[in-house]
């Protein structure tokens, strides 16, 4: 065969091969291919879970790279995935495969080591990775750096750390393991001091926790330096500089010597002459190196404010500095002048406001004797406050001057108000609003036609309008306002609205719920597929989900699909489901007669609680509570769920067993209640409860004559239905300072299911809280209980004790058994409690004093009710505020007690009286 021919054949074959590959590789599409199929894979497994609805690429549509890239961005926005890749298969009919890498979150972090490293401290100081936070390799590296730094600060140098992770299969959770394998420690060989030390070395070392011969811990040394600074500061060396000048490490011996440099700078002595002013008021000004003139000026201002508050209205202060060697004396000379009583405030030349209106706007309380209205410091601030108030009403040139009419030791302040002219809005024009009427738009802004012109308010109105559009489902609306000055004090406003698009919800996608059913989540949603994306309803839905109490994280995100459509992605992370708590305390057998409680019999009391939440993924909760003490034992099983027969009514079913010892009887009771709660207001401050109750009570240890009903029926069964209305407008349920609380319950017990009950009871309570001034508060409570029918003793009204009438012991108010003198309770109760609380010591904010007056009684029958029969008690005490309410120590005197009885009682309690 011819070599040439063979070569040519092979050459042609080779080039055809290569060319064919090249031609095929070089895509020359004639028309756009169609997307025939879209699949999603996560961790190698097929997944859908609402993914197709999230993206704009659709099966059957022509392929568009732009849509693919948009879809990647939309999926990433969900926050569920750390990486997304799209593969393409086919030529004219293509399949798109989305490869999704899940974003993991940290389930737990375990630190192990060979020594005694402070694991808790390290976990606490670790910010890049925390339980529940998102996990990534980047964060793992950051965590390693942070742990090394934290270990160094705790004296573990050059640590070797091994980090590993374990992903929990089937979840997006990962456990992180940190193993500290080795580290170096140093002993402190020597601590020396340099500079102008002033104190002895021994004294300085006594203040330090770092010691020679002990391990060197940098964080401890840092604390030591702060402590030394405080020591020098207490010696008036406020500007002392204390730092580590040198650290000599001996690597062979693993020892370190420290040299601490001390530069005390000047000693600063603050001298106040002429009046008593706490130095704590002025010291903070001089604790940093400051511009001295500023310090003097600021100090003068603080002293004047302090003196005015104490009603030295015309106090004068002059400040100066004296230097001597390394000493600085800051001298404040005060001429306090006379102390005045401040009379009623008077206003002159008012036109726009009346005096009453102005006082209301400024929140100036009436001038109550001994309590007062305005203090001296506030008095001098009033001119500026009034000018600001007028400004907000369009008066930009108002000038207020404060004058006094002095008479002996009293001043009557007069505020002269030169109002000036008011700027007004002549007209408001709206441009570009097609979706809403002009009236509707005007309702949303605070500026009004013919109303006052106040620029900051006008500038905020566009934001208000944008928010309004957002609430109505519009997105990307922009509002601008143009202010046009027509005349001297007349303005016209032009609101230019560029309405965005009204966006519809295409899909609602739920992610992250493992136990909770989709239905449970969807029930709380106030928007559905096809609804407009009303922002207020979306945020409200988030709050409703939070209220379920079963999620540790909730996020509702809007993922735009197009200018008019979006997906709503609900991301949740379920919280812990099991809770257990144990409370232990002590109680005395009898109420204490003195502070020496060791004279009394003391027993343990306790509470144990187990809660399992989100049962069957329905947000229902089961709890078991047990309480035990000398006087009562109780076991309660509760079932709580957010819905009742499909209606949005929070429902509780309780079953309980209890034993309680009262003053005149003891009882065993068991029962079941079903309660539903319906909120009557948006803010949930008004609710209505309906309760169905069945209970069986067995009396024992009866220390009074048995009543007919008690004698005939033992055990006593009652079945009842009650309706309760509660309106709570207090600012704080545990520590209220203002507002009011109203509740009213009507209970009808009727014979049902072989029950003996046949009575009607009502109980109404009203509380009002008044802030007077400067942390002084007045509160009033009134209670009225009425009953009719055959009421057994355990259902009657009782009064007396730390939470009702502080002139008698618990339950002792009202009629007594003629034989045993034990309380028998009654069918009518009336109580009024008044309290005045006031601060005792300025630096102890939570400590208050209280004086109180209680009036009331319990009556055997409603017809026995008489105002003349009401008893009176007065008293005083101390309160210490805690987050759960005040701890109270009170002494009460019953003004109506028979002379032979002890009439002073002491009460120690937690919580408010009412």
């Amino acid at each position, binding site marked *: 065969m011819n070599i040439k021919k063979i070569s040519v054949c092979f050459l042609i074959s*080779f080039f055809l*091969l290569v060319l064919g590959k090249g031609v095929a590789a070089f895509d020359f599409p004639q028309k*756009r291919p169609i997307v025939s199929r879209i699949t999603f894979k996560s961790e190698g497994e097929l997944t859908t879970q609402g993914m197709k609805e999230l993206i704009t690429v659709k099966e059957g549509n022509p392929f*568009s*790279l*732009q849509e693919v890239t948009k879809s*990647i*961005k939309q999926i990433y926005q969900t926050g569920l995935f750390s990486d997304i890749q799209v593969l393409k298969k086919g030529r004219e009919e293509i399949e798109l495969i989305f490869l999704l890498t899940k974003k993991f979150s940290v389930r737990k972090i375990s630190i192990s080591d060979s020594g005694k490293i402070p694991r808790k401290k390290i976990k606490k100081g670790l910010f890049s990775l925390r339980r529940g936070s998102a996990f990534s390799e*980047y964060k793992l590296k950051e965590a390693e750096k942070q742990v090394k730094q934290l270990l160094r600060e705790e004296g573990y140098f050059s640590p070797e750390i091994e980090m590993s992770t374990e992903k929990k299969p089937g979840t997006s959770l990962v456990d992180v393991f940190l193993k500290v394998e080795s580290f170096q420690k140093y002993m402190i060989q020597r601590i020396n001091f340099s500079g102008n030390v002033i104190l002895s070395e021994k004294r300085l070392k006594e203040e330090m926790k770092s010691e020679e011969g002990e391990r060197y811990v940098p964080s401890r040394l840092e604390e030591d330096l702060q402590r030394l600074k405080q020591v020098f500061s207490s010696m008036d060396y406020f500007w002392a500089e204390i730092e580590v000048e040198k650290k000599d490490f001996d690597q062979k011996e693993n020892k370190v010597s420290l040299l601490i440099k001390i530069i005390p700078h000047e000693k600063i002595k603050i001298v106040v002459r002429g009046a008593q002013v706490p130095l704590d008021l002025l010291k903070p000004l001089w604790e940093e190196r400051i511009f001295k003139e500023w310090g003097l000026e600021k100090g003068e201002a603080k002293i004047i404010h302090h003196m005015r508050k104490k009603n030295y209205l015309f106090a004068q202060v002059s400040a100066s500095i004296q230097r001597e060697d390394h000493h600085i004396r800051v001298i404040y000379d005060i001429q306090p002048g006379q102390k005045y009583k401040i009379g009623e405030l008077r206003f002159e030349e008012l036109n726009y406001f009346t005096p009453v209106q102005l006082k209301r706007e400024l929140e100036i309380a009436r001038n109550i004797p001994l309590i007062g209205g305005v203090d001296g410091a506030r008095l001098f601030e009033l001119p500026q406050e009034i000018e600001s108030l007028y400004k907000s009403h369009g008066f930009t040139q108002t000038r207020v001057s404060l004058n006094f009419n002095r008479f002996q030791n009293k001043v009557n302040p007069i505020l002269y108000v030169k109002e000036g002219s008011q700027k007004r809005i002549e007209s408001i024009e709206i441009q570009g609003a097609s979706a809403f009427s002009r009236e509707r738009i005007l309702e949303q802004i605070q500026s009004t036609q013919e109303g006052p012109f106040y620029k900051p308010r006008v500038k905020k109105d566009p934001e208000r309008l944008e928010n309004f559009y957002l609430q109505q489902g519009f997105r990307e609306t922009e509002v601008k306002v143009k202010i046009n000055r027509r005349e001297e004090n007349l303005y016209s406003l032009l609101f230019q609205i560029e309405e965005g698009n009204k966006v519809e919800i295409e899909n609602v996608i739920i992610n992250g719920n493992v136990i909770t059913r989709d239905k449970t989540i969807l029930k709380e949603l106030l928007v559905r597929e096809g609804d407009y994306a009303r922002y207020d309803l979306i945020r409200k839905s988030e709050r409703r989900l939070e209220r379920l109490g079963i999620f540790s994280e909730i996020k509702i995100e809007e993922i735009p699909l197009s200018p008019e459509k979006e997906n709503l992605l609900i991301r949740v992370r379920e919280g812990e489901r099991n809770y257990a708590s144990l409370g232990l305390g002590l109680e005395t057998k009898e109420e204490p007669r003195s502070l020496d409680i060791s004279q009394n019999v003391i027993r343990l009391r306790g509470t144990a609680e187990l809660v399992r939440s989100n049962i069957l993924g329905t947000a229902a909760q089961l709890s078991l509570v047990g309480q035990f003490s000398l006087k009562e034992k109780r076991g309660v099983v509760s079932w709580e769920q957010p819905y009742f027969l499909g209606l949005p009514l929070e429902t509780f079913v309780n079953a309980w067993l209890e034993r309680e010892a009262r003053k005149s009887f003891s009882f065993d009771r068991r029962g079941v209640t079903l309660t539903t709660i319906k909120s009557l207001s948006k803010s949930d401050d008004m609710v209505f409860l309906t309760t169905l109750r069945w209970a069986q009570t067995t009396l024992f240890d009866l220390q009074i004559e048995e009543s007919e009903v008690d004698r005939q029926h033992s055990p006593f069964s009652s079945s009842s239905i009650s309706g309760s209305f509660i309106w709570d407008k207090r600012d704080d349920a545990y520590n209220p300072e203002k507002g009011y609380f109203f509740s009213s319950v009507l209970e009808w017990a009727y014979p049902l299911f072989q029950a003996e009950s046949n009575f009607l009871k009502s109980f109404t309570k009203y509380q009002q809280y008044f802030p007077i001034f400067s942390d002084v508060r007045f509160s009033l409570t009134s209670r009225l209980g009425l009953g009719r029918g055959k009421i057994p003793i355990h259902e009657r009204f009782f009064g007396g004790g730390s939470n009702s009438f502080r002139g008698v012991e618990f339950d002792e108010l009202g009629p007594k058994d003629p034989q045993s003198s034990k309380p028998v309770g009654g069918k009518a109760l009336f109580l009024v409690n008044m309290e005045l609380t006031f601060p005792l010591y300025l630096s102890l904010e939570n400590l208050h004093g209280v004086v109180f007056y209680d009036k009331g009684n319990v009556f055997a029958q409603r017809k026995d009710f008489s105002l003349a029969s009401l008893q009176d008690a007065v008293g005083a005490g101390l309160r210490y505020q805690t987050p759960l309410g005040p701890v109270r120590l009170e002494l009460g005197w019953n003004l109506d007690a028979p002379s032979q009885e002890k009439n002073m009682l002491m009460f120690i309690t937690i919580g408010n009286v009412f």
Partner: protein
Amino acid sequence: MKNLLRLKGKVRLISMVWTGILLWGLILWFEFPAYPLQKTVDRIVAVVDNQVITLADLKIVKEFHLYQTKPGDETLKETKILIRLINQELVKQVARENGNLDEEKIQENLERLKDRLGEKVFQRKLLKWGLQPENLKEYIREKIVYKNIIERKFKDTVVITLQDIKDYYREEYLPSQQKKGKEPSPLTEVLEEIELRVKKKKVEQQAEDWLRNLRKEAKIHIKMDEYKNIWNESE
């Protein structure tokens, strides 16, 4: 093969060599098929403070020369284009601007792009990437917004001194003119032009310093190695 083995000497040797080459070609064909079974069409290349830059963004910007151009920029590497895209994203976030530009200006830019590439090439590129002309507007918008923000931030704050102009004239203008073999004009004649150039240079320098700081403070995750391979695979 039988016939091949019957051949003798040189002929046999040459035939065996070509057969080997052919076989190797066939192996390559199946190992790296002309049309792969599945290929990456798009993926995340960088995340800038939770905002994604995809491979498609990179491809499109490169394909249509949509990045900020300076003389000599035409053959920029993908890494540099990516950095420019990242800068754009950071500036957009800092300035919180959505780019309320005149639609006309964007359309103008699009027309200029078309003219620069030529209609046929423009259409072919669009078809290749499955794009419509409208799809390019978003990229153009971002480019213009970026440019406006930089100008607004630095143009008016940059101070040009006479010394700066003199230095530029001496160190850059004169040598460049000499290199081109041209007679350099006196400073007084080119003062305005040089001032503009110096200003532009300073603005770019200040912008670059600012951008460098922004990049330091931002959370940027770049998957550089991955996107490089993806780029080759996709082509």
